[in-house]
């Protein structure tokens, strides 16, 4: 029973990270109808930047903030340089372009930072917390992870709902034509969407790297799980992304805990296939199924 609690709590913690990636994918999907396959690699890259800053300044939080800023810049830069020219072209081209970005970033990371596994510091203590004598299976850091993602998500949600900039983004996502006719610069809105997605990805990288170590391919699996979470929740639905992330995190935690850590990717594959076959639009999406 204690084990179950431990798996649940650590599943929630990882689930928040998948939720962050899922949310970044949803942001981009709503703006450009694309899946950014490079989202994980971008997060890896900004985490490397963080490590360099931490090393040179000795301050974790400086590195943290710089990484988030780098995520914003990287997201916007990628959209302007590489995605904008591809909009309106065949969908296949855009998918391959984001894969090209993925490959490029992993190659650059290898060149600048080398391939060895680097350890990444955690913001808070990673020793397990206890209630009485029972180990909870989570640490202060895990709590920070959940809180950081939750706070960021809430800030974004509030921003979207209550600010004019948020209204612009929502209008552009729902109906770009009407938005443009209203005077909204949709192209700019899209760039902002990618910048925010870059921020979320950077956050995810910072939060997960203490557990996975940092190397050029370290975000590959996390990205894939984040994508699965986004699909579960529905690529159109930010709320679905968060719930999908939590569900997946907990499910994979049980699978890994009771069946062995080697099966998690296979379980995720199974979940992804089942969800896509039953409800291709995702559990929480109200949108039309993408058939044609």
């Amino acid at each position, binding site marked *: 029973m204690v084990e179950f609690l431990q798996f649940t709590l650590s599943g929630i913690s990882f689930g928040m990270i998948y939720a962050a990636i899922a949310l970044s994918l949803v942001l981009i999907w709503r703006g450009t109808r694309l899946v950014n396959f490079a989202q994980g690699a971008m997060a890896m890259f900004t985490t490397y930047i963080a490590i360099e800053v931490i090393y040179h300044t000795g301050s974790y939080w400086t590195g943290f903030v710089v990484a988030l800023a780098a995520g914003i810049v990287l997201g916007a830069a990628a959209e302007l340089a590489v995605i904008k020219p591809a909009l309106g072209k065949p969908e296949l081209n855009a998918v391959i372009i984001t*894969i090209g970005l993925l*490959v490029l970033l992993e190659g650059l990371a*290898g060149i600048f930072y080398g391939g060895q596994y680097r350890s990444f510091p955690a913001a808070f203590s990673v020793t397990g917390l206890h209630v009485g004598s029972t180990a909870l299976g989570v640490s202060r850091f895990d709590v920070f992870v959940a809180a950081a993602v939750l706070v960021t998500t809430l800030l974004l949600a509030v921003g979207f709902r209550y600010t004019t900039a948020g209204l612009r983004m929502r209008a552009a996502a729902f109906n770009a034509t009407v938005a443009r006719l209203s005077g909204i610069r949709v192209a700019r809105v899209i760039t902002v969407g990618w910048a925010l997605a870059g921020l979320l990805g950077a956050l995810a990288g910072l939060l997960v790297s203490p557990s996975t170590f940092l190397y050029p391919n370290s975000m590959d699996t996390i990205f*894939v799980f984040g*994508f699965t979470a986004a699909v579960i929740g529905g690529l159109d639905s930010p709320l679905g992304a968060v719930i999908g992330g939590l569900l997946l995190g907990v499910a994979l935690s049980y699978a890994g805990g009771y069946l062995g850590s080697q099966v998690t990717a296979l379980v995720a594959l199974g979940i992804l296939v089942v969800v896509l076959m039953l409800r*291709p639009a995702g559990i929480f999406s109200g949108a039309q199924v993408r058939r*044609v």
Partner: protein
Amino acid sequence: MRSPLLRILGVALLGAVIVVLLSIKLNAFRDYQIAEIAVYVIAIAGLTVLTGLSGQISLGNGAFMAIGAYTTALLLAHLGWPFVAVLVVAGIVSAATGAIVGVAAARLHGPYLAGVTLMLGVALPFLAFVYPSTLGGDQGLNVVYTQPAFLGVNFPLTRWQAWISSAVALVVLVLLANLGRSRVGRNWRAVRDDEVAAALAGINVAQARVLAFVVSAACAGLAGALLAIITALVAPGAFTITLSIALLTGAVIGGLGTLFGAIWGSLVIVLVPVYATDVATSHGLSTTVASNIPVAAYGVVLILVMLIFPQGIQGGVLWLLRLLGISAARPSHEASTPDAMPSAGETPARPHEKEGTQ
């Protein structure tokens, strides 16, 4: 006018002759590279048919290669079958897996399909850890392969491996060329260009899509089987997502949808890293940096090809031939010639909202 089939066979024969000559003249390492290139030609050709002809993107063909490779290793180790039989079985097992994946993915498009195949490519290698006793876990399985006795004792193994890999590659290319020219190929292109119109024209869209996956997986499985014997080892580390992405990279750079593109693409992904690493280390760069330079370059090339030159190297070759007046072959949607298949640059855009008629 010679029939297209004869022309295809003629080209294949020419290719065979070239390979035999090269394999005799060059040293053992080069023979190994010829074999490696042939392996990638098979895998990339399967992928280019799937993505370029039937319009289904797959980021998981490395998983099919793994299936072919592990099947080969197990059959050779436990049953000692002759290699031809093993090759056939490996192809069949991969094809069957391809059918399963194809059915699951039949209704998926674009990013959803890419995501599922990506997950397949990431997850499948973990099977080796789940069944470490049979599948060898992290260390993998050694592949037991002995060359046929009739060659004699002095015949270099690498040359033999180059020969059989290339032979299989040429056979596969000829078969794919014919398939591309047949009704199956036309159906694939129709489905790729406009599913609704294809269905209205009486094409069984789901069947066509699944068949493409079967063919693609079979090719990857054969490639994996050959890879197993030329590297003498199958381990999960050789079949990561990096492999699947390398296949896609090769297909795109070579010219998506074209069989010659599969050849150019595999030449690039086998030879460029070796060459670049040599150049870089001779300039004093560490091996890590040197081995990552081609990777970064691939990323840039993928992006540039998609943005500027979607038809890849084969597109460039055709353009050059047209310029010199040698060839009148144009990439077209109705192409019946095997080496002029349309590429990613010609797939139609998503149907945009129809403008009003007033």
